[in-house]
């Protein structure tokens, strides 16, 4: 095998997200030509995906069983393969560094900037990454990196600078007393998991560049203990990073939603068994892990910084799930529209609306919104990068009730507006079924939870209910009249409130 994958004239790439790697094994034993495992493309609907590259052409074979894949490899080996039979073919220069995108749904949907190496390079091989233009940002000067950091806003609720330019945070760490550290918070988000599994060098390069800019001596990659593949991949990648003055550690935290909150991530990294939020201010970039100034960014943020440093325009990584046939993770230019995300999936049933922004996203009947913090904020939607599609069979009163109950059961328990507020909110929503719909009382409680909760968990937990009332108030009124428009809520009105 050559030093990097791009120099192979004939190569078979296998992208499959199951840990068993059955297709990879079947193909490798069926042929003598090089077979490599690449990361997932973000589209499970295409996988297991077999890519045959030969003579400046790449043929795409989608959803291959191990047998089909082995068959392709054997026919290729004995010279009888008719490449025209592939699901798609694309021509490209021989050493093309990024996945060539054929006319194949849903691959051609959206943009491919941050994700362009996914499905094309071996994730943990540094030479593959380098030959595709990687490691240029770690080698560039601090001014370039700093100005990139000022142009990028934090992605995801696990980022300490969500929706805010991250450069401000870096400046605070530079000015603070103590030896800075950088936390790569990859806990719990599908977009971050994709980066760690398919192109882990990219966020790690961002982290190295951040560490150089603020003169940090440690980088801590933090992820959920449930994300085993990402853990394996990032651990192997760390071994293969170019040597710098920065130590890179990998730490896992519990598989709980709240464990992604930036200060709870610090608690988990310090080994706390019970996770609860820390007070702010001072913010973690002044006093963070073991009291050291600590930057906390998601892989998505760090990847954007690398791209901004090379002059690329910003994009958003969005995962679409819910009432769809296959989940998809797609990249959308910031000047594009979230409606693009819908075209990357097949909706199960008739589209009714979407929950935009993850667990505590906002409800909207219309996805034609730019994926920018300002536009999303104006619509009270979240920037988490997860859209759940809701079909017409979904009862939205039940949907927000479930989210409120999740908040009640999963909060850390520290502050009153969230710990007790979610209990009362869940009761108020439950009482709708008993004929008592009190929108003013619900909104008063939401305002206070939003304005006085200690962390984003409690603040964001208000969003599903607030947007549900904004857009679908008639459904609440119908339930108070004893009628569920979708017929989902079949329970007879009860007078007992679940504890």
């Amino acid at each position, binding site marked *: 095998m050559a030093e990097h994958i791009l120099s192979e004239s004939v190569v078979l790439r296998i992208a499959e997200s199951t840990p068993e790697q059955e297709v990879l094994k079947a193909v490798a034993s069926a042929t003598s030509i090089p077979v490599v495992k690449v990361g997932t493309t973000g589209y499970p609907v295409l996988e297991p995906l077999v890519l045959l590259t030969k003579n400046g052409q790449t043929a795409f074979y989608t959803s291959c069983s191990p047998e089909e894949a082995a068959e392709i490899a054997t026919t290729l080996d004995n010279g009888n393969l008719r490449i025209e039979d592939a699901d798609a073919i694309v021509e490209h220069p021989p050493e093309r560094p990024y996945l060539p995108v054929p006319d194949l749904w849903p691959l051609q949907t959206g943009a491919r900037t941050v994700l362009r190496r996914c499905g094309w390079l071996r994730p943990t091989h540094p030479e593959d990454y380098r030959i595709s233009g990687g490691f240029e940002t770690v080698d560039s000067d601090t001014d370039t990196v700093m100005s990139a950091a000022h142009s990028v806003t934090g992605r995801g609720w696990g980022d300490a600078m969500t929706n805010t330019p991250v450069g401000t945070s870096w400046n605070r760490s530079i000015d603070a007393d103590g030896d800075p550290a950088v936390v790569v918070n990859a806990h719990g988000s599908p977009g971050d998991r994709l980066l760690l599994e398919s192109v882990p060098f990219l966020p790690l390069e961002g982290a190295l560049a951040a560490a150089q800019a603020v003169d940090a001596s440690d980088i801590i990659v933090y992820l959920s203990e449930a994300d085993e593949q990402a853990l394996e991949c990032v651990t192997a990648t760390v071994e293969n990073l170019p040597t710098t003055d920065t130590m890179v550690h990998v730490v896992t935290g*519990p598989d709980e939603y709240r464990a992604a909150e930036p200060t709870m991530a610090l608690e988990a990294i*310090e080994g706390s068994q019970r996770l609860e*939020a820390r007070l702010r201010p001072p913010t973690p970039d002044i006093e963070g892990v073991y009291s050291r100034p600590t930057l906390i960014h998601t892989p998505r943020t760090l990847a954007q910084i690398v791209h901004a440093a090379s002059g690329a325009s910003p994009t958003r990584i969005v995962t679409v799930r819910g009432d769809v046939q296959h989940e998809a993770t797609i990249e959308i230019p910031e000047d594009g529209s979230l409606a693009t995300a819908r075209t990357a999936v097949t909706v199960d049933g008739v589209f009714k609306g979407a929950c935009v922004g993850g667990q505590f996203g906002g409800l909207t009947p219309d996805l034609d919104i730019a994926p920018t913090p300002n536009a999303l904020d104006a619509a009270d939607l979240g920037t988490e990068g997860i859209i759940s599609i809701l079909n017409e069979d979904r009862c939205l009163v039940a949907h927000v009730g479930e989210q409120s109950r999740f908040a009640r059961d999963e909060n850390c328990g520290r502050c*009153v507006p969230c710990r007790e507020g979610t209990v009362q909110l869940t009761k108020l929503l439950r009482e709708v079924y008993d004929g008592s719909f009190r929108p003013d009382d619900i909104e008063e409680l939401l305002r206070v939870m939003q304005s*006085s909760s200690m962390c984003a968990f409690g603040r964001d937990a208000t969003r599903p209910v607030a947007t549900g009332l904004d857009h679908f108030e008639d459904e609440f009124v119908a339930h108070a009249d004893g009628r569920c428009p979708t017929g989902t809520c079949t329970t007879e009105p009860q007078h007992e409130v679940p504890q």
Partner: protein
Amino acid sequence: MSSEFARDDVPPLTEAIQPGTATDPTVGSTDAATLTVDGHEVTLEAGATLLDAVTAVDTNEDVPALCSYDREDNIGPRSECRTCMVKTDEHGLVPSCSFPAEDGLNVRTDAVAATEARDVNLDLVLSNHNLRCTTCGKNGRCELQDAAIANDVAEPRYGVLDNRGAYEPIDDSSSFIQIDRNKCILCNRCVEACNDVQVEGVLRLEGNGQDTRIGFQNDAETMADSTCVSCGHCVTVCPTGSLVETGIVDAATLPVPGFTQKNSIGRSIEPSDENTELMTPMKQDDWSEKDGQTSTEAATESESEDWP
């Protein structure tokens, strides 16, 4: 949980103490500051919070600041009750007990949103409190009662904890300190008194969501089985009737025939016969073998049954 990023300069004793609470950063201002509260100018030393400014003047509205504690530096601010919210032009609504007193801030206690937040949060505290003051040992010297009276709470909007099925049994197993968790506001003062002042490592916070409660670092279920040394510091700092010295449990209760604190709850855990010493048996047995490790508190799974 794996951690290969550990600190090696922590003394063994404090490392063994696991209070279950977050390691907060140092709060308070870095410099002396002059600011205004409801139009009154206040000047404060470095290290001050907005609550220091609020208490220094005659404010337009009452600020209960229920969970704050200014009598010992090692305790607080926990900043959990959020009944100290004030409005600033620069940062919007902030909890005054933990927000640094920045120079030039314009603080209002009487902004509509701040008053609303304090009132709603106080009612949220009461919603999870057994408000049977007449049978409570702290009746008349309770900070929650004082706050509710000062804030003119007549009818708390979310009611009070008044469901016998939801009450936790009173822990009367120790001959010195009684715990009634139905009156706990989770201010964490007792945990800090125990760990940060006395360095005893007995009490901790455990659980999450509605199951958040004070418990014991040795996983004991009762005070008697804990490693308590009966120093009583936790009782001193507790704002409510949650931690009370056993001898004075009924001291302040109104004599209503047949109606006592215990039968108001229904269940209690009584001391066993041999437990009459001040120090709990666990503490006497083997203090030195305490390893301080706490088990992972199983987090509540979100109920899987269908809504509603």
